[in-house]
């Protein structure tokens, strides 16, 4: 990136060379794509003309303090860059198994985890790299795990879908859709019984929202007033199926009422809005106010996993989300507007992050595989 950094940034934004941090330039205002899917009723906080998924968007006039904003920006860029490199590592045949990428959804994990302390808990999903990084996982350990190396978080036993980092309260991603409702709620029960003021955040998808154990766990969270936040990442699809086709409510947050729980719906592309909503829920939970259900409306910019061409959605739909709902670009715009950042500074962060991620890839490539005998370790403690 020699020469004028601003020009370099713009080029990076628009032509998206490898590494493809920003997938396409953000249009000033593009028309909402014509969709075949049923329209949904708008919540009170949303104007009639707002596009699908532009949830309870509440733009702040004032940003949080500069440190927080910068660290959220950096973390989102880190996740984006990491995921682009996972794509690359996958397509170059450097990793075994599958990878579900979080590109486009970064604001949910980063907004939520920014509201948490290190000793708070999260549970993650098969699409979990973003959650793990946002909760404080190191790039090297993540990439090494994804490549099945000894230096990985799980010493090569878990891979992309099972990264956990108990030292920072990350109780693990889960290969079972809906598999962590019990674990997150149990961690909240444990926090309450141990009389700590820890809080647990359970990330799950729109698809997982249809698993029965959600109702069981949520009910217990309500009757026992547990410090847990159920954070539904409604990215519009479960694998290839649009959520409307398999979900009996127009907005998943509507289920909160049935659980007897407070519910909030938030624009999942707006990291500031996510931060605000989760902060409120966390404060409430810490003070003994019990659980909250949050639906973050978001979109995945890539297929279900690397290699899924996503033929089940239109190019126009994808383009609309990428143009209007890229969480990194939205925050960058706010930062520029508020004078918190300059183009040069934003670019510098991207460059630093890129260097770090490339170093992590190199570290992981060179790291040794575990000894085969380790297959027999850690079955029992």
């Amino acid at each position, binding site marked *: 990136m020699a020469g004028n950094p601003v020009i370099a940034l713009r080029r990076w934004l628009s032509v998206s060379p490898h590494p493809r941090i920003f997938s396409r330039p953000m249009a000033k205002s593009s028309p909402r794509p014509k969709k075949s899917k049923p329209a949904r009723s708008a919540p009170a906080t949303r104007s009639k003309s707002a596009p699908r998924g532009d949830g309870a968007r509440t733009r702040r006039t004032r940003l949080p303090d500069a440190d927080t904003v910068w660290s959220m920006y950096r973390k989102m860029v880190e996740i984006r860059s990491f995921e682009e490199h996972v794509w690359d590592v996958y397509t170059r045949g450097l990793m075994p198994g599958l990878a579900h990428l979080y590109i486009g959804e970064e604001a949910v994990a980063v907004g939520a985890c920014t509201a948490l302390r290190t000793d708070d808990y999260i549970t993650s999903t098969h699409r979990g790299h973003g959650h793990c990084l946002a909760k404080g996982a190191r790039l090297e350990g993540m990439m090494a795990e994804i490549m099945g190396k000894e230096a990985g978080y799980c010493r090569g036993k878990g891979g992309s879908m099972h990264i956990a980092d108990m030292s920072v309260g990350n109780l693990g991603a889960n290969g079972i859709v809906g598999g962590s409702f019990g674990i997150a709620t149990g961690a909240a029960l444990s926090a309450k*019984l141990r009389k700590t003021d820890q809080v647990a955040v359970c990330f799950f998808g729109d698809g997982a929202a249809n698993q029965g154990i959600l109702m069981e766990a949520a009910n217990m969270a309500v009757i026992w007033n547990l410090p847990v936040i159920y954070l539904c990442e409604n990215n519009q699809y479960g694998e290839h199926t649009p959520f409307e086709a398999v979900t009996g409510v127009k907005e998943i947050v509507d289920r909160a009422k049935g659980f007897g729980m407070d519910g909030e719906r938030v624009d999942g592309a707006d990291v500031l809005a996510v931060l605000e909503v989760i902060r409120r829920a966390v404060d409430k939970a810490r003070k003994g106010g019990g659980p909250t259900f949050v639906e973050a409306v978001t979109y995945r910019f890539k297929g279900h996993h690397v290699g899924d061409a996503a033929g089940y959605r239109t190019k126009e739909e994808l383009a609309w989300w990428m143009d209007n709902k890229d969480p990194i670009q939205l925050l960058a715009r706010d930062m520029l507007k508020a004078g918190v950042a300059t183009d040069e500074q934003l670019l510098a962060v991207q460059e630093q992050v890129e260097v770090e991620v490339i170093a992590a890839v190199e570290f992981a490539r060179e790291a040794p595989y575990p000894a085969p005998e380790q297959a027999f370790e*850690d079955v029992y403690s």
Partner: protein
Amino acid sequence: MTATATAKPTREITFREAICEAMAEEMRRDEAVILIGEDVGKSGGIFKCSEGLWAEFGSNRVIDAPIAEEGYVGLSVGAAMTGMRPIAELMFGDFALLTMDQLVNQAAKIRYMTGGQCKVSLTVRLSMGAGRSSAAQHSQSLHALFAHIPGLKVAIPSCPRDAKGLLKSAIRDDNPVLFFEDKLMYNDLGEVPEQEYLIPLGQADIKRPGSDVTLVATSSMVGLSLEAAEVLAAEGIEAEVVDVRCLYPLDADTIVASAKKTGYAIVIDEGAARYGITGELASVIQERAFDWLDGPVLRIAAADVPIPFSPVLELPTIPDVARVVDAVRSLRG
């Protein structure tokens, strides 16, 4: 190692009381131990195994759960991963089938999948066994399903003394342990030491020494085998009864040594015959004791049908003393 080789003072209590004492002692000893299940609180449980615990420990530690087995077992897994030692009670073992994802996909694997980052210090107590006219959904003995799963431990005691000592070990264990209690044994009386004691998981116990045939049995089948041994003794056949006590870890050495000594082995278990415990143990014996055996290793187990309701139908589907005696006679005849 025999069950009665202790000179220390004992007293007679029921199997139920042994379970209750084990939980109470462990809850007194360690604040992290909690009990969660349906009706376990003030009412003391439908089998009365937690009588008095709610009064002593309060509703924060003796927790009445909603009827949501997958949910509260799932919560127990999460609590176990974060510093608690939950005991989850499933009133009927049949209901464990609703919790399979939590136990098999989550509890059994989380430590392994995360490279040893956590411990799942969870005990699941569940009842088993037919013979109460409870029909096919309240009578199953499903321990083989769990013994099949790497990451789980399975204890299956046969008497009050073992129940208490094994349950205390299970609660202290840092792994998920499934603890199977035969419903028909809750009222059985047995000698239990006055003083505190533990029985480690993974030690079989010779409940009756003998020289002529080995009866390898689990849970209530141990009592049945002891009865059969009395009948056989009258015929001059001395049966050795080996109580397996734990399906995993399995004390294969004790079982195999006994089979080598007597030259004949029969495995008796109340689970269904096919692909079950009896087949597994018969296999272990023949693999390691083949050259010492004077006949095939026989299996006696529940019939390959769902458990029927009417006693006339139900009783023939589960092992009885006559079948054990006949099997021994057929081997030695």
